[in-house]
């Protein structure tokens, strides 16, 4: 029961801090922070089952989050009929070719009759022929699609379905990519896995930045449909105006808080569901087996456990959760901006969350996600305050002072680094150690 | 007082005690052999004497100095040389470089020592610019011994030098070890080939569960019926 006190205290501190932000900055800011805190917590949960349950170091979180973001675009954006009629068929054909190539490769790989070298040659040949066809069919189509009103569309659009579906699709897509990369890298040493996942993440982002026909690239996709009401429609609806008048709330601010609250409740639902599932999984025989494998691979292997298969399982699961969180983030922001995916922000910050919260502890991931995101946002005003204070002897127009004040926001990286180093050194088990 | 005197050693890893009032001593020019069943703490005794294991109790005197609390590197400086059982050479380096690394602290006699080692192990001279992973097991053991000799040790400690080498090579290695001891170097070794080792030994220690069971001249132990029956396979 001791643990409960500790959990209660730590979470209370967080909510008190959030309350202070609401009170002194604004409630809008506080809820905006809180929403992303929840998403961060979900990402941290996903990463935590990889590192905490199985000891897998995934440095490609950014990529899986971006896949989720792409899913949000493809599911929710209305289809662009003009571009589809121009190049939709060719693109579909290319998709079929890719599917065919993947199928042939898998088939070739499982046919044990052929020698290793023949198998590899055939696989390479299949891929090269496939690439040739894709280039031949796809390139002209892509050029035409991208040339169509590039300032407004220039891409195929999506399926025009409710954006909530993308949460599931994003998770499935991220899981599929995790399966591919896991097949290759799991079973190798853990730092190879880290570098390979770093690579897959970067590669995914290059694709998203450059394949304009799919994502509009760096031109971004804006104004994705929302799962919750719009502020303007609230402000115009009669019941809402009456509601605000009755309690004397400011109309505009209240509407945006209500919208954020709607998001919060959606996100919280997901968080609670996932958290409960993970807690059950952790205490189930499956979870015990995972931890047994993590703690002693040699003896687990000796007991006949298929470690690589278990690792792939958990790698897929964790990455799918990150994909889900990525889709949620794009849903919340209402736009998809490939250049926003920076490894420091997406991959390594999530790592800080998991480690600070306590690897292997789901409560830890949640509080880690909450606290670190809170600090990440609040580091900016805080850093500014410190810089202004330190440089206050200098005159207002001093160029050094101006320069430092200008760069003060980057102190957040310094803070993340220090936080990670200090926790790793002095309290490596984090806020909530495993099992507590 | 013997040249090396390790008395009443008590120690182990963590909670488990492996050495239990174990006493080992060697004199200059002598060969002392530690034998005993698997898990008797033979290698642990060696590691303890060399300072790679912290003792809970006991004292180690070397050349009339108390070295109980010295680090392994400091013991090398005082004149102790150690050949571990495994990983006892630098695999990616050449024979010559291995010897040079052995003499890292002892620069002034380096060339002379290398010549001495080459005359002791002529094959190494031939293979001096080859890397260790190209050498046979016996040759690697020779390099390992040579590396330890580079520091001009007054006491050379060998942990199972003949493990995993062919019988012919075992014989040759024991010959070389006798040769080294005849130069006035004290030799302490742990051996699986107990009979052959005791045959060249001046002194033998039979360890059982970290305790001295028998301590006698090598030849007497070989004759001792109980020892033969229990430890030497009849």
């Amino acid at each position, binding site marked *: 029961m001791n643990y409960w006190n500790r959990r209660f205290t730590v979470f209370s501190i967080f909510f008190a801090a959030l309350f202070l932000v609401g009170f002194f900055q604004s409630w809008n800011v506080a809820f905006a922070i809180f929403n992303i805190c929840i998403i961060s917590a979900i990402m941290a949960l996903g990463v935590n089952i990889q590192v905490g349950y199985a000891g897998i170091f995934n440095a490609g979180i950014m990529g899986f989050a971006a896949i989720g973001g792409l899913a949000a675009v493809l599911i929710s954006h209305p289809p662009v009929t003009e571009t589809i009629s121009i190049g939709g068929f060719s693109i579909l054909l290319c998709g079929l070719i890719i599917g065919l190539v993947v199928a042939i490769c898998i088939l070739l790989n499982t046919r044990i009759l052929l020698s290793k070298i023949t198998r590899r040659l055939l696989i390479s040949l299949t891929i090269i022929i496939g690439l040739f066809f894709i280039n031949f069919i796809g390139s002209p189509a892509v050029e035409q699609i991208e040339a169509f009103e590039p300032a407004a569309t220039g891409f195929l659009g999506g399926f025009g379905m409710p954006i909530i579906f993308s949460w599931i699709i994003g998770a499935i897509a991220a899981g599929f990519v995790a399966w591919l990369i896991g097949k290759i890298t799991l079973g190798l040493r853990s730092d190879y896995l880290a*570098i390979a996942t770093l690579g897959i993440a970067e590669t995914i982002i290059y694709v998203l930045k*450059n394949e304009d026909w799919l994502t509009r690239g760096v031109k971004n996709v804006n104004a994705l449909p929302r799962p919750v009401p719009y502020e303007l429609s609230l402000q115009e609806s009669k019941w809402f105006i009456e509601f605000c008048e009755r309690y004397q709330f400011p109309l505009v601010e209240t509407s945006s808080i209500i919208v954020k609250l709607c998001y919060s409740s959606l996100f919280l639902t997901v968080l609670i569901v996932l958290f409960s599932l993970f807690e059950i999984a952790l205490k189930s025989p499956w979870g015990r087996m995972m931890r047994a494998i993590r703690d002693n691979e040699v003896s687990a292997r000796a007991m006949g456990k298929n470690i690589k298969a278990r690792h792939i399982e958990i790698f897929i699961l964790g990455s799918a959760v990150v994909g889900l969180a990525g889709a949620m983030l794009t849903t919340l922001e209402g736009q998809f901006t490939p250049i926003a995916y920076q490894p420091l922000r997406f991959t390594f910050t999530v*790592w800080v969350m998991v480690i600070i919260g306590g690897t292997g502890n789901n409560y830890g991931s949640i509080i880690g996600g909450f606290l670190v995101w809170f600090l990440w946002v609040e580091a900016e005003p805080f850093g500014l305050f410190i810089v202004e204070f330190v440089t206050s002897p200098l005159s207002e127009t001093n160029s050094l002072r101006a*320069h430092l004040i200008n760069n003060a926001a980057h102190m957040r990286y310094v803070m993340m680094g220090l936080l*990670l*180093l200090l926790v790793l050194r002095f309290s490596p088990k984090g806020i909530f150690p495993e099992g507590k | 007082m013997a040249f090396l005197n390790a008395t009443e050693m008590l120690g182990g890893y963590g909670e488990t005690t492996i050495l239990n009032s174990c006493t080992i001593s060697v004199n200059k020019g002598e060969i002392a052999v530690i034998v005993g069943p698997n898990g008797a703490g033979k290698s642990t005794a060696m590691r303890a004497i060399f300072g790679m294991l912290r003792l809970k109790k006991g004292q180690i005197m070397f050349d009339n100095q108390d070295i109980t609390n010295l680090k392994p*590197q400091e013991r090398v400086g005082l004149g102790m040389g150690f050949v571990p059982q495994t990983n006892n050479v630098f695999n990616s380096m050449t024979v010559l*470089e291995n010897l*040079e*690394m052995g003499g890292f602290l002892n620069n002034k006699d380096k060339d002379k020592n290398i010549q001495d080692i080459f005359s002791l192990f002529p094959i190494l001279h031939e293979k001096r610019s080859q890397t260790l992973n190209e050498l046979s097991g016996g040759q690697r053991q020779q390099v390992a011994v040579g590396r330890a000799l580079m520091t001009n040790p007054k006491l050379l400690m060998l942990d199972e030098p003949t493990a995993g080498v062919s019988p012919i090579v075992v014989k040759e290695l024991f010959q070389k070890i006798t040769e080294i001891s005849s130069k006035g170097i004290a030799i302490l070794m742990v051996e699986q080939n107990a009979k052959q080792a005791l045959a060249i030994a001046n002194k033998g220690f039979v360890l059982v569960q970290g305790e001295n069971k028998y301590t006698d001249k090598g030849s007497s132990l070989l004759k001792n019926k109980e020892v033969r029956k229990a430890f030497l396979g009849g």
Partner: protein
Amino acid sequence: MDYFNALALIINFIVIPGLTYGSQLALGALGVTLIYAVLRFSNFAHGELMSFGTMICILFTWLGQSYGFSFSFLPTALLFVPIAVIFCVLYCIVIEKFVFSFYRKQKADPIITLIASIGVMFLTAGLIRFIIGPGDQSFNDGVRFIFSVRDFKNFTGLEQGFGLKTTQALTIGITLFLSISLFWFLNSTKTGKSMRAFSDNEELALLSGIDPNKVVLVTWIIAGSLATFAGVLYGLDKIYKPFIFLQMLLPIFSAAILGGVGNPIGAFIGGYIIALSELIVTFAYKRVLGYILPENLAPDSMMQFLATDYKYAVSFIILVIVLIIRPTGIFSGKTI
């Protein structure tokens, strides 16, 4: 004649830039591989160390320029590289003292040290952005070309030609000099050999009386120096961007793994293989084929395997292939 034109195109667009970029990667990969071999962890902060050294060099170059320093036709920055090296090495030593030495003495799992290096990466990235800002900085004030494409064309009378930028010649020359010095150091000096011995078998190195602290110190001195040179040469040749160094981790690590982690010669060669493959795969061969094929076969399309934007992805593809086929790399690594 046409063949010479094709060759000139390939030299200008693949060979020279490939060797230049390869040199920059090789210097980075050498640092990564040395740290791996001696300190036994993958240093994710290496890109930021490169960035840090470069930033110091830029700051001193600005200071020097304001006092009227210049280095005739060479970039002024070269004068200040030694100072930058000293700062970067000092920074490495401070980091070692306060962060890495703790995990080394604990014999922590390499992955824990790797996570600590991510903390260092954050910290360094933040300091850099705080001090010099996140924007691009161009600091090359030397003469641009040793000879330009036009000089070459005028000289030979060919339709196509290749030029050599001062920074390209400098990069390749300095890299060769540094790498050869490093290999000589590792193979022929007592300290260098002791580093190899330590990397090969730590316990035996200790038994031989090799001082671990000295080995670690020398490793950081070398890694910090190489990182500074790599960063400065990259910045001179292209432009200094604080964001680029995290992206460069991928090709650098790919080069190190391709060559065999912990193997300096492997890292050196790996750097060039990665760089040349990037350019070979993303180069548009249309003009080259126009020269060597008969006219009726000349291609209409760009004849490009991958769009130039996917340059960095190439190193990932190579990495994946290496991991599938031969995870130990070309020269099976792990020790120096």
